[in-house]
């Protein structure tokens, strides 16, 4: 299960990537760049967790 290390990506992106995009312009999807960057990590985090969920043997064969 090396895939689970993907879960570290949002932490790094949010805590250490944010200084790189600390600007208002360009406006992305109607939002200041920095807010658009942070918001993007909500669906991206869900995507990563979805991948981890699908590959995790703990979630196979047991339907509750």
């Amino acid at each position, binding site marked *: 299960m090396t895939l689970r290390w993907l*879960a570290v990506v*949002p*932490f790094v992106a*949010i*805590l*250490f990537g*944010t*200084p790189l995009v*600390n*600007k*208002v312009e360009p*406006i992305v*999807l*109607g*939002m*200041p760049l*920095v*807010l658009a960057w*942070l*918001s993007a*990590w*909500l*669906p991206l*985090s*869900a995507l*990563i*967790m*979805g991948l*981890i*969920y699908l590959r*995790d043997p*703990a*979630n196979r064969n*047991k339907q*509750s």
Partner: protein
Amino acid sequence: MNTSLTVISLFSLLALGLGLRARSGRRMTLEQWTVGGRGFGTILVFLLMAGEIYTTFTLLGGSGFAYGKGAAVYYILMYCTLAYIYSYWLLPPIWRFAKQHKILSQPEFFRKKYDSRTLSVLVSVVGITASIPYLALQLKGLGIIVQVASYGTVSATPAVCLGVLLLAVYVVVSGVHGSVWTAVVKDISVLGIAVFLGIYLPIHHYGGFGEMFRAIDQAKPGFLIFTSSGTSFTWFQTTVLLTATGFFMWPFSFTSIFTAKSEQAFRRNAVTLPIYQLILLFVFFVGFAAILKVPGLKGGEIDLALFKLSVQAFDPWFVGVIGGVGVLTALVPGSLLLISTSTSIANDLYRGAINTRATDATVNRIARLLVPVVALLSAYFALNGGGALVSLLLMGYSLVTQLFPGLLVSLFEIRRLNTAGVISGIVVAEVAVVSATLTHSTIATIFPSLPPAVRDINFGFAALIINVLVASAVSFATQSRARSVSSS
């Protein structure tokens, strides 16, 4: 009675009706009352966990924070997301151990893991100290909402009193079953209202989102981004880390974890909850929209931004709908807080320290008797606490987070910290947090000559580091790197 007040009353009655009906013929044993007989499926657990984010504090405070502090508000969006990510691995083992040992509260969890009554009493006291201001803040929010949304016909004091009565009645009758059914209605309506307001208001007032943010940036340069001191990256990083770490350490979070029927629920919710966070974005938009339209709100008034703007823009009946939804956002977390606090006093202070042979039935009776007492106490703080409440809530987060190291190590087979270490770490860190709050100290006031990168460290985060250092040192000194006795 005006239109908006009628609508608010209808919402409140609906909540009461649902709360009372939720009992529906169940025999309310202690396990049913506190943790729903551990029978809730993925969706109900989702709603209880989401119920903790969309509180009155987020609806009013989230928009107010965006209005008053700008970029600082972004942290709210991020810490929950990070907490949900690690919940995938943290919550299943907590749930498993609790189910196996029929655990009902957070302090009991620590007691069974560490086999220490001292520790569970300490955890219980920390939890209660942090929870009561939180509950008071929900009630205070409820009072503000009813006052503003009824155009001043009902003042905050009777609103808080009625709210507390409603809450106490359905919590005593239905316990957590009541919370979950109110949560269903609440989440559907918050979703609708927040998304609608967050889209409508910026477009109505500014012609679009980009236009709105450009206008704000022009009027207040630097407001929408992180600055070199104050709302700096150091502040953002340490605050996000502190609050993400503390996210599940509230006693009521444990209550909602224990309601789950299977551990699968947590892994599924870890996938869906980050997306659900997007709704908060719309709450922020409302706050941003208010900046140039209802300028001049200062201090505690910033929390009124959402309602001031709504009263300006909508008909009374719709203001009533927003008010009614606001009342629901106070009731769900309010009821969870009431249940976990009363259970903790009855189960961990009374049964844990005074009468160790009390039966479940006795504990349940005491817990339910305590509901009105805790509710009244919180109402008292809500009406008389003043501005001190917000600082108490911030302190609450710093307080509960200190339980994290002890919880985390207890989940591993080989335990790196012993009971003495965990207790010392918690005590030292809590003393630091409380004294810093009472003397209004921050890292910046204690060490003013430090560079901003260090000065803006969140104090609670610093206390967490002290906590880990003390816990490790004491564990090492008392040397028993004891193997875990009770882990599954």
